[in-house]
Every structure is written in C-alpha cells, then in structure tokens.
C-alpha cells in the first residue's frame, strides 16, 4: 500500500467514508426492513480510527460474546469486510426473520446461522453497492462466514489485517432500531493498493 497510512488520513477522507457509511447503512436498513417487513430507523453512522491494540475492546467488553460475519471483497478492490453485532441484536433479527417469539434466545442452530449469513450478505451487499456507486469501481462480496465468540477473539481478525500495515483500524459504527436498538459495526479491510484505488476513484489526492 505504498506509503499511505491511516495516520495521514485527513478530515476530508473521513467525511467521504462517513458518507459511504451513511448511504451503505441506509441501503442496508431499507433491505432489512423490507425483508423483515418492519420499519427501521437508522442513526448517523460514526466513523472512528482505533489503535490496533485497543480493537479488542472497541465495541464493549473484550469477553462479551458477539456475532461476527466476515466476507471477502473482490474485483476492482481486494480485501475483506466484517459486520459485527451484539448477541441481543442478532437474536432479535433472527427471531424476526424466523417469525419466532421475540424473547426466544436459545443457542443458534444451523438454520439460524444461515439466517445470520443472509443478514450479513444483505448488509455487506448494501454497503458495497454504496461504495461501488460512489467510486464507479466494480466491487462484490464473496460468501459470508460466521463466528460467535468473545469480541476480542473475533476482532483479532481485523486487528491482524490492519496490524500488517498500520497502528490503527477504521471502524464504522451504525445503530438501527425498530422497537429495540440493533447495534452494528462495519469494518472494511482493503488490501494492497485498494485504499489508494478508492481514494483516487473518489477524486481525493493520494
């Protein structure tokens, strides 16, 4: 990734990412609302730069159990993206999708996991189509993988990915809500020259 590092990222780049996050999360919210047939509100996403060493506690307690969905990103840019949500949010969405009692919170079975992967697909697809639309780059997600574990262990994946090139990682935090709040976090992890490609496509100096 040449000499570009997050330490050099300026406010303008932040604003662009926030805008992408906004549109992406907006698309995702609409897609999920349609799928679940409910009305969803979304708060303005927050874009944060977090020190790699602090990633484990970036979304709360390190031992808190979270649901992580990891997808590869390919074509014009390469890398991966992760969508994370806390356990109550995941249960809430899966219960909606499976038309179950909202209070149901047994461990996820294979069907539930497949529902979670589908949610990940929709959210990642919405986010990436926003990025694609703004940059005119052809960007597509690969199949999603799910892990349910301690936050720090799941977040070690982006920590390692970012740790190879920088001391910081870029987080986009989104909150949706219907009758309960759904907390979600996106982490986009472009590889190699991909960051520069995104910046160049957005007309920002590299």
């Amino acid at each position, binding site marked *: 990734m040449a000499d570009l*590092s997050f330490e050099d990222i300026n406010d303008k780049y932040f604003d662009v990412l926030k805008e992408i996050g906004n549109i992406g999360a907006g698309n995702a919210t609409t897609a999920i609302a349609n799928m679940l047939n409910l009305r969803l509100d979304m708060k303005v996403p927050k874009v944060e730069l977090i020190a*790699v*060493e*602090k*990633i*484990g506690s970036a979304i709360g307690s*390190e*031992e808190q*159990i979270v649901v*992580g969905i*990891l*997808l*590869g990103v390919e074509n014009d840019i*390469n*890398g*991966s993206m992760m969508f994370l949500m806390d356990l109550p949010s995941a249960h809430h969405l899966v219960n909606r999708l499976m038309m179950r009692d909202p209070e149901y919170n047994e461990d996820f079975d294979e069907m539930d996991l497949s529902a979670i992967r589908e949610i990940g697909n929709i959210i990642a697809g919405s986010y990436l189509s926003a990025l694609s639309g703004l940059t005119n780059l052809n960007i597509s997600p690969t*199949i*999603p*993988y*799910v*892990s*349910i*574990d*301690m*936050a*720090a*262990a*799941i*977040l*070690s*994946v982006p*920590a*390692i*990915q970012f*740790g*190879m*090139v*920088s*001391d910081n990682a870029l987080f986009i935090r989104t909150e949706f809500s219907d009758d309960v709040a759904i907390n979600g976090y996106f982490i986009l*992890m472009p*590889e190699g020259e991909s960051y520069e490609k995104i910046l160049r496509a957005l007309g920002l100096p590299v």
Partner: protein
Amino acid sequence: MGEMIKVGMADLKACNAPDNLTTIGLGSCIGIAIYDPVTKISGLAHIMLPDSTQIRNNSNIAKFADTGIQQLYDDMIKMGANKSRLVAKIAGGATMFAGGGAAPTINVGQRNAEASKAKLKELGVKLLAEDTGLNYGRTVEFYSETGDYLIKAVGKPPKTI
C-alpha cells in the same frame, strides 16, 4: 493471593510471584507464557503476527512473535530468571473464520504458533505444553506459584495445561 496483571493485545509483561498474568480473547493471536520454576518469575506475551521482518510497520515489538518473545525473555533475565531453567506454554492461534476472508490472514494463527515455537527453540526455552489451533477464542491465565496455564473458551469447560 497476588494481583492478576492484564496483558493487552500486542503487549507483554513479566512479574514475580505471587502476581499472576492474564490476557483476554486470544483469537489468531498467541499467548506465550514463559516461566522460571525456581524464582517463579513469569512472563506473558500476546503477539499478533509471526514475523517483524515481513512487515514495514514494525515499531511495536510486542506485536510480533520474533521480537516480542525476545523482549519478554530479556526482561525476565534482567529480573533474575535463569536462562537454562526457562520453560514455556503457549495458547491461541485459532482460525476464527474457517475458510473465510482475505488470503494473508488465512492460517495466520497457525503461522503465529509455528513462529512462536521456532523463536522459543532458538532461545533454548523448552515448550512444555500448547493449546493451539481450532476455531475458537481463548482467555488465558498464568499462575506464577504453580506454573499452571488456565485456558477458558466460550461454551467449553476450562482446562489447565
């Protein structure tokens, strides 16, 4: 009962008995515990990547197996640990998303484990036990009085190595 000292991600610490060491939520990272059973000087490193020479951005030496283990070893010798008595136990190195994600992170857990073992061997520190690989996160606690390395994972009974 000593204090439980927390070691963060890309961090390392050494202590004397009765203090103990812990690190939370090892995924693909490795928790390397080094121990002198006579002086009970104990150390724990939480490394993220196998090799500092492969990475341009390598200022934090605790981030890498090669430099992190070296630093911990040096710190412990300085505290009075005896080189020839040092032993080690390691845990972590999981693949959190089997088959998923970007190429360079595939098997980073396994590569972390291999690099840690190679560095310990180079320093002449005997590896007594390991709990590495598979697909789940681990929280570890090292007890300086006994040399026990306690490993906790979600939905699994705790185990001691």
